[in-house]
């Protein structure tokens, strides 16, 4: 291997024009990390609070129903549905399907539209209509 001339390297993230598929791919990791850290921490804290009795649980409810707590819970709900829908997209792509540009882009956009729609519907129901 005497040749030392500069060979072309695979371009990194910054050089590509952003599209829905790239955004959804990054969102899959971000939402996964958020669910892993904040989501599981809150789930564990919630179970511990239930096990400790009404007083500990009242503490949990107080923080969860605070505006900041609500924003976190709504955010995690969206993260859950975004990760779920884009996870389904990845399972489909694992079979080798849906790599064509058109359907790939449509599928990516659908995961975002779907996650926002389901999250909005769920929280409007919880905050406005749940008895």
């Amino acid at each position, binding site marked *: 291997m005497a040749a030392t001339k500069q060979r072309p390297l695979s371009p990194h993230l910054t050089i590509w024009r952003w599209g829905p598929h790239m955004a959804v791919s990054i969102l899959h990791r971000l939402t996964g990390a958020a669910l892993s850290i904040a989501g*599981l921490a809150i789930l564990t804290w919630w*179970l511990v609070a239930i096990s400790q009795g009404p007083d500990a649980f009242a503490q949990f409810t107080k923080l969860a129903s605070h505006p900041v707590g609500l924003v976190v819970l709504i955010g995690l709900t969206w993260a859950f549905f975004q990760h779920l829908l884009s996870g389904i997209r990845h399972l489909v792509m694992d079979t080798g399907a849906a790599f064509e540009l058109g359907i790939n882009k449509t599928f990516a956009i659908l995961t975002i539209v779907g996650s926002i729609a389901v999250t909005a519907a769920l929280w409007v129901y919880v905050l406005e209509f749940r008895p």
Partner: protein
Amino acid sequence: MSLGDSATPLGKVRGLGSAREGGEHWLTERVTSIALLFLGTWLIASLLLLPSLDQRTLLEWLSAPSGAVPMALLVIIGFRHALDGMKVVVDDYVHVEGNRVALNTLLLFLAVGGGALALFALARIAFGGAA
């Protein structure tokens, strides 16, 4: 993922990839994701269908096998999937080997510790030690 002793060296590398391991990890991530598709949907549907979300109602719900068993599975599989997913993110973005090993070890401890805490709380709820 064993190919048996009959596989040629080339066949082994083709089956396992240049990293020689990871096939199991990759598959586990997919299988746990399918389980969580059901368990996550179950959790959200249950929270919407319960008559109320106060401590007494939740305690009753998680004391019955129909609540405790899926919740235990959600905790175990959820922490496992989170650990597998976070490992992929750490392996991709943390390039210094020492940092990568340290972070992966920390995540393993957090996942096992968090999962154990959540399961203990759940056991306390289910087996009547809770208030």
